[in-house]
């Protein structure tokens, strides 16, 4: 995103809208700190700028990656999904992605409201790779990561995004170890992450998962997401 100085009236109305604080007044006009800007588009879409001074510039590699992971209005071409991750549990009644005896885990680096660089993402993905985790192929982030080492394309390490999600399925038996691995990496990061757990609503899986969370010292939230099972065809009824 850029600000066309010839159109900016210096009213300062835009400054507080930026989720990462990248807009400031430099001299008489508003300016964007390009290192901090994550190309999320909030300034372009939501500010009633009197001079219509915000301009989407054509982004090239590697900067374009900022918009891919920060602007929720983009539909990913290969997955046809908006947002930053995948359909995950939202369509599990149809896809059967998460099965009994398995859990899904999501590590959303940068959320909430801090943002992350891909250096942060790589710290976590490297730890996961060492633990033998295989990341979800449909997640756009996975395509940027060497699954064997957790390394990320050198070109994008310093790019910043509002958040990026590492997603994977793990056997329930391995949950304890995976959680310890994830939490041990937390202190090495320069950002925050929001962690989530998905499981099929089946008593044995649920009770074992809750038992492991208690052992590791994690209190799951009271609020969460429920897939109510109205999707068709049901995975159990013949969907691949």
């Amino acid at each position, binding site marked *: 995103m850029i600000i066309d100085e010839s159109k900016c009236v210096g009213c300062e109305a835009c400054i507080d809208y930026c989720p990462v604080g990248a807009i400031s007044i430099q001299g008489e006009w508003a300016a964007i700190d390009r290192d901090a800007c994550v190309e999320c588009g909030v300034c372009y879409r939501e500010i009633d700028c009197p001079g219509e001074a915000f301009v989407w510039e054509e982004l090239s590699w590697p900067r374009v990656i900022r918009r891919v992971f920060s602007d929720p209005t983009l539909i990913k071409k290969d997955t046809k999904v908006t947002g930053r991750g995948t359909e995950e549990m939202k369509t599990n009644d149809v896809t059967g992605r998460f099965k009994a005896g398995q859990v899904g885990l999501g590590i959303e680096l940068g959320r909430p409201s801090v943002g992350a660089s891909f250096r942060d993402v790589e710290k976590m993905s490297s730890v996961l790779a060492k633990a033998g985790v295989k990341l979800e192929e449909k997640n756009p982030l996975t395509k940027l990561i060497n699954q064997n080492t957790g390394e990320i394309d050198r070109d994008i390490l310093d790019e910043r995004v509002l958040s990026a999600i590492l997603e994977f399925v793990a056997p329930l038996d391995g949950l304890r170890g995976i959680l310890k691995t994830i939490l041990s990496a937390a202190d090495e990061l320069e950002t925050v992450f929001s962690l989530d757990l998905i499981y099929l*609503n089946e008593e044995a899986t649920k009770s074992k998962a809750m038992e492991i969370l208690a052992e590791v010292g994690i209190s799951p939230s009271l609020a969460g997401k*429920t897939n109510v*099972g109205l999707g068709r065809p049901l995975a159990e009824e013949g969907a691949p």
Partner: protein
Amino acid sequence: MTHTLHRLGSLETLEKDFVVMAMTAKGFNEEGSIPKLREYFEIILKHKPVNYGEVMAGSRSIASVSQIMDSFNISSVPHGVFTTPKQVEDVLKDLKKADLGLSIVVSGVLSEVEKCCRNAGLRPHTLEHSLGIWGKKEKLPQTKILEITNMCGHSMISPRLAEREIGEVSSKKKKPEEAVEVLTRCCRCSIFNPERAVVLVKEMVGEKSSAE
């Protein structure tokens, strides 16, 4: 895509905060789904959500119902935000009757949503918990601000903007509802709960006033 998860705050306010969404499973049932998404959305509107919309057109703050529905495509995830379990239960009853085949997800206090499902004759299929925030938590905005801004899971609502608007309320330049409307507009997916935000803003202003 866990945008409706990780909502923060007291049980008292979370119990008045439910998001219902519909989604197609790509590669399984997206063909012919647009009329079904519209029928789903009509059911949502029938039960008087406090916010509604879809990311491409935006929320009820910036788009009309017809603009929102005209924007639907196979990737659309239309949302409705509700404040009572009874509304959610009634929505689920209507959706079960309509048998659209879309995957339906409800975000909210899990025990309350389970009751809604049971009363609607449904058994929850898959569950998701937030396991909290980890890492450099000293970089986070103050907790009360985060309770408001994190209702937009894509972090489109700037904490600075929330602080500014709360300041406007505090100095009597705006009503809480007017300040919250500024924030509501920023959440393109329309999952921000303006009624809950008004309660939170009033709490914050009240705290400030009593401290002074």
